[in-house]
């Protein structure tokens, strides 16, 4: 159970009259990797900084390992942070960068040397220990920043957009390394990111934050396949889920939906729980296929060839955009008229307030 991890209780924060966080609560497991995922301005970085002690919450509690830490200064919380721009001390060598926090904490020098040697071995930065940050590449600085966090053996790692300053190739490699590193550290790891692929691949659980609130907390595939609401459905997954206006066809059994162009889709969403009022239906590209006998007519506006599959961006007769998938060797071209078949069993419905309804597992 999450008692030994990080606990947030009703954390609130406003800058002046602008609310930033509106009562955030969260409990993590003992060695869990959590991703705070949200668009910029969602409050996710502020939440991370409140946990680190770089911002103070207006109200609420932060507990780590069953102790309240929100009233302690940043250095005494048992927390280490890797900054987005690394924040290495430019005039200190890599070794001194890593030793700085330990010396301030009056750790014996022999102990410091041992910890730095260990971290340097794990991160493969041993040859760099006597260099200055300016003499390092972006990826090397990243490792040093992680090393500076590791040597403190914190109970909680905070990573602020750790991959955003790296180029694409290095980002993928570092992502793998972070995943491996994660197996070695005995701590909760919290990573802030706006990149859903990073969150999906690294985290045990994703905390989707938007509009000052936690929108959903769940394992990556849970957030992907059963998004709590319209925002999560659109934000997680790339390309984004297609969402269309829908009308409930009266009848029995699972909800049947009529689209704007008159075509009907049988879903597996239970009819009972659905709210009255306007509905929307959403499906991911992988449940929309180009098929000669498909009931839905559309015009192609963009074709994206990804190799193993092809993404086809289309427009329905009434102008609404829809994203479909085709095989890797697809011969489709922009301007083609195509027919689309929608796999209604994997469709999601959204109520007027954005709440999502999913296929019942029992059917």
């Amino acid at each position, binding site marked *: 159970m999450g008692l030994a991890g990080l606990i947030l209780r009703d954390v609130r924060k406003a800058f002046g009259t602008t609310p930033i966080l509106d009562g955030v609560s969260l409990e993590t497991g003992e060695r869990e990797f959590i991703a705070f995922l949200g668009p910029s301005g969602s409050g996710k970085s502020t939440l991370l900084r409140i946990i*680190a*002690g*770089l911002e103070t919450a207006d109200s609420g509690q932060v507990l780590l390992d069953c102790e309240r830490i929100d009233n302690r*200064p*940043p*250095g*005494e919380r048992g*927390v*280490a*942070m890797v*900054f*987005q*721009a690394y*924040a*290495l*001390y*430019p*005039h*200190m060598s890599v070794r001194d960068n890593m030793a*700085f*926090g330990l010396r*301030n*904490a009056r750790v014996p020098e022999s102990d410091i040397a041992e910890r730095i040697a260990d971290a340097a071995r794990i991160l493969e930065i041993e040859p760099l220990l006597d260099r*200055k940050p*300016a*003499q390092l590449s972006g990826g090397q600085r990243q490792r040093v920043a992680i090393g*500076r966090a590791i040597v403190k053996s914190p109970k909680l790692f905070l990573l602020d957009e750790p991959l955003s300053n790296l180029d694409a190739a290095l980002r993928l490699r570092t992502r793998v390394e972070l995943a491996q590193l994660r197996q070695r550290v005995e701590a909760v790891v919290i990573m802030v990111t706006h990149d859903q692929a990073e969150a999906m691949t690294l985290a045990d659980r994703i905390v989707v934050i938007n509009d000052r609130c936690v929108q959903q907390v769940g394992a990556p595939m849970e957030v992907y396949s059963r998004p709590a609401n319209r925002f999560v459905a659109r934000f997680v997954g790339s390309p984004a889920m297609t969402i269309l206006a829908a009308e409930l066809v009266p009848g029995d059994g699972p909800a049947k939906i009529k689209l704007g162009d008159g075509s009907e889709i049988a879903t597996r969403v239970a009819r009972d729980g659905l709210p009255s009022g306007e509905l929307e239906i959403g499906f991911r590209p992988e449940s929309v296929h180009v098929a000669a006998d498909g009931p839905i007519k559309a015009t192609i506006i963009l074709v994206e060839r990804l190799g193993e599959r092809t993404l086809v961006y289309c427009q329905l007769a009434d102008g609404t955009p829809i994203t479909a998938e085709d095989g890797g060797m697809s011969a489709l071209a922009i301007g083609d008229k195509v027919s689309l078949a929608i796999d209604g069993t994997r469709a999601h419905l959204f109520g007027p307030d954005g709440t999502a309804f999913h296929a019942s597992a029992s059917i």
Partner: protein
Amino acid sequence: MRDRRSLSGFAFVAPFLLLYGFLQLYPLLRGIIISLRREDLFGGGHFIGLANYTELLGDPVFGQAVLNTLLVTLMIVPPLTIIALLLALALNNATRSSAIFRGLFFSSSVLSVTIVTLIWRFVLTPDAGLVGEALKAAGHAPLPFLSDAHLVLPAIAITTIWWSIGLPMILFLAGLQQIPADMYEAAALDRSSRWTTLWKITLPALRRTTLLVVMLQTAGQLQLFGQSQLLTAGGPGGASRTMVLFIYETAFVRWQLGYAAAGAEILFVMILMVTLIQYVTINRDSEGAR
């Protein structure tokens, strides 16, 4: 083709080169030539080689002027640098009062030397001046700042520090603004005390700014002139005569243009040396950091 390209290159830098040559190089060369001649302000004169220089080296008045200049520079530069740094550290925040104080401390820099010396004459005058009254109130005899040979250089130094505090303060503030905020956040997470943060983060980051301030001020104060001319006219008994004042008096009071030019060349070499030290130190510094 290549000639045309280099020609058009020269055309682009020509305006600068002409101005630079006319306003900087020509006077410099002309000064060197004059310093090798016995020359009067009203024409006439002849080449005498290094005679002006050998005479200067034996001239006790010039010797004292050099000594005075070095002393007053030493009295000004270290305290000026430290005070400017402390002010910058204290005023490096976004509050309204800091903005007001930044303006106040900088305001003295916009005054002309005449106003500055006028103000400080009032402050330093023994019988009615601010300092004199303060000393009297404390039961102490007022000090004759401007007529005591031992007090006159410190008095000029204080006046100069008050006058020139603005620029170094702004330079330090600019240096402080360059330190990224996340550096301090990292230090906070590293349990760094305020004192440790100042010594290990802030001051090392200000190294180059400090060097710049010290060198600029040294080069500037070696040319100190107006304060000593207007406060004391170099007195009492030459105790506050600086090198530039000596050069000025020689050229425009005693009309010995060649002799004055030789003094100016010696000052030029002194300032050049200070600048070279700065250049070498900064270059070595940046090689070490990168």
